């Protein structure tokens, strides 16, 4: 691992984003609009308070997953990844560079959407808001790590966006947002237990209901998933191809 290359890669990814102001605007504004829409749908009532925090976890996950998987696929298909790996770039330098750059975007995104939710939209959160935002950022990083990993299994952008219904929507259905996990059929509850998003929603629910939430376990599991996915991601980066 080489800090110089990791930071250079993160800076390069952010510079690319800077040249694409429309994407930046969409990354930052769309989660806010969706949160506001949800508040409006439920007229700011109790249902809004119940599912709002969970959605603060889900939006950054989805958006970062999409952005990262497509960005990495582009590196693979344009030959820039091969070029970087023929240079002194380590596989981890490349992945951490991306994680760092999109992590920074995720922090801004979570701050904006979270602040909007708890101030203007008056979301009722019992626990400290910073824990809520931290979980949202972890979720965004989870999306980055998953996106980096799955981009290896797609040859085209058409294929990579199909991973969204394949890998992301099942997690949304099973994470406890629609039906509490304990009330699901046993098999689905077990399945839910091996999916990372479930722990994110658990943590968000904890922050919502408990004044001194203990999210360490859930947070730790999310971090473990992030590290595991990044490690799997390094195995998909090949210096030699056929």
């Amino acid at each position, binding site marked *: 691992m080489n800090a*110089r*290359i990791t930071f*250079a*890669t993160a*800076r*390069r990814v952010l*510079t*690319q984003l800077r*040249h*694409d102001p429309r994407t930046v605007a969409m990354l930052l504004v769309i989660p806010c609009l969706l949160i506001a829409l949800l508040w409006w749908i439920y007229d700011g009532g109790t249902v809004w308070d119940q599912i709002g925090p969970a959605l603060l976890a889900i939006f950054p996950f989805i958006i970062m997953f999409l952005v990262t998987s497509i960005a990495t696929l582009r590196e693979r298909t*344009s*030959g*820039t990844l*091969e*070029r*970087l*790996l*023929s*240079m*002194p*770039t380590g596989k981890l330098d490349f992945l951490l560079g991306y994680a760092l750059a999109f992590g920074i975007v995720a922090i801004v995104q979570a701050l904006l959407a979270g602040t909007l939710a708890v101030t203007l939209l008056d979301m009722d959160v019992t626990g400290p808001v910073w824990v809520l935002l931290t979980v949202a950022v972890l979720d965004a990083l989870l999306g980055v790590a998953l996106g980096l990993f799955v981009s290896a299994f797609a040859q085209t952008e058409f294929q990579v966006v199909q991973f969204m219904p394949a890998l992301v929507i099942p997690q949304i259905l099973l994470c406890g947002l629609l039906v509490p996990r304990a009330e699901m059929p046993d098999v689905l509850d077990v399945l839910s237990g091996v999916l990372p998003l479930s722990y994110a929603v658990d943590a968000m629910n904890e922050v919502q209901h408990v004044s001194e939430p203990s999210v360490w376990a859930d947070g730790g599991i999310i971090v473990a998933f992030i590290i595991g996915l990044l490690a799997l991601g390094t195995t998909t980066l090949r*210096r*030699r*191809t*056929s």
Partner: protein
Amino acid sequence: MMNYEMGAAEARSGQPDEHAVRIRGLRVVRGARAILDGFDLDIRRGSITGLLGPSGSGKSTLMRAIIGVQKIAGGEVDVLGSPAGSAGLRTRVAYVTQAPSVYTDLTVRQNLRYFADVLGAPHADVDRAIGQVDLGDHADKLATNLSGGQFSRVSLAVALLGRPELLVLDEPTVGLDPVLRQELWDMFAEIAADGATLLVSSHVMDEAQRCNDLVLLREGGVLLAHDTLANLLERTGAADAEQAFLHLVSKEVSHV
């Protein structure tokens, strides 16, 4: 420019290694087909070696094997005294693919600065390389807004960062006007004069005149000849590289 590195390399190995690249029995398979099979080649240090042949003759595959990004099924490829693709070679060997591999959504300068950071090359190299490929007037343009020829030169400029001892360039002059092609070949000659080795593929046969050595391949990865242009012309009695190539192909065919 390269004297220090060359001296150090020679001191380490104890004797000057006259070959920048040494290939023995290289075999590359794609699907059921062998692209290169039992391929041998030595490339002289400090030479400009032209790699000529029609598409499908394995030029790019051979270059990829030298860089160490190609999966090989057998044989040995040694580059600057180490196995191709070794970690120690990653700043000593530069590679330009046929399709430009730079970021379209960065400016020329931002692209080069990033790759310079990755290589640990000084930032002064960025402006030097931009000047060498004649993109000084476009340095702050986004790569996506450049013409095709300009875009491929950004990719070439990346290979000029740092002090590579071996440059492997896959069709670097394709799509460029004659004046610019001339200038780039002048630059290649300067780089070689500084002690670096260049392997340049082309299917423009008139560029062969700018090379010290020529490697002629034909379809199926068959090495037709590896010699100087003068020797090739003498052997075949041809007037230029293209005629020599055609002569060697027809001789090969008549032998079968």
